[in-house]
């Protein structure tokens, strides 16, 4: 097992389009972890989502959102990237351009 460089991690984020997003709700004291389709640009993950638990949790606790992407061939051959960031909603022309 070895650590990936930041550059390797970014390349893996760029070439994948399915990741797992985890958020947390302090009021429910619950984590929520779901697969999402995403696009990676400018050190950010861009995701489109409908109203629901995921969006409620992200709005309640926008900090410390975890995003995970992996390429797993088998137990011996795998790559995994774990990233942490803050949630922000997008509006205006940026919204249409990114998702």
């Amino acid at each position, binding site marked *: *097992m070895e650590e990936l460089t930041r550059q390797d991690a970014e390349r893996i984020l760029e070439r994948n389009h*399915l990741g*797992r997003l*985890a*958020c*947390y709700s302090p009021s429910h*004291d*619950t*984590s*929520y*972890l*779901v*697969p999402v*389709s995403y696009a990676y640009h400018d050190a950010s993950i861009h995701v489109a989502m409908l109203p629901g638990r995921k969006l409620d949790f992200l709005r309640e*606790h926008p*900090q*410390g*959102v*975890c*995003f*995970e992407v*992996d390429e*797993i061939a*088998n*137990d*011996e051959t*795998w790559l*995994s990237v*774990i990233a*942490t960031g803050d949630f922000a909603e997008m509006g205006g022309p940026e919204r249409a351009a990114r998702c």
Partner: protein
Amino acid sequence: MRDLSKAEIEALLRHCKIGRIGVFDQRHQRTYVVPVSYQFRDGAAYLHSAPGLKLDLLHEQPAGVCFQIDDIADEGEWRSLIAWGRFEEISDLDERMRVLRLFGDRLTRGPLRDRNQGGRAGMLGAGETVYRVVLDEMTGRADESGWLGTESD
């Protein structure tokens, strides 16, 4: 999109071999997700891990662990399950061995083999924490509308 039945949920849990565990890190106020190999038996996901952040967080906050699996062909053809459960470490030696044997090949290949060869001969998976996440609440969804179905939404 539709909800999975209880039987479909069990079938998906048996079908998948890799899931993701999500835990909340209170100290840093952030979530942590990692892919894990698991085996499903009797309402629980059985796992083993080497010491690290994931185990530290599971020990710190054993309740409300999120466990997620999916089988995704494309955006319009997928099955996904989200479960919440509690972390329970398995320390009884016989039970540990029973759990490790569920992983079959992993005992002679891959991460466990590497650790076995690290001078701890005589005890398979020594240094690994063996545990289960008892799945208390589960929700499963599926979409079979196909790729074009989502494109036209």
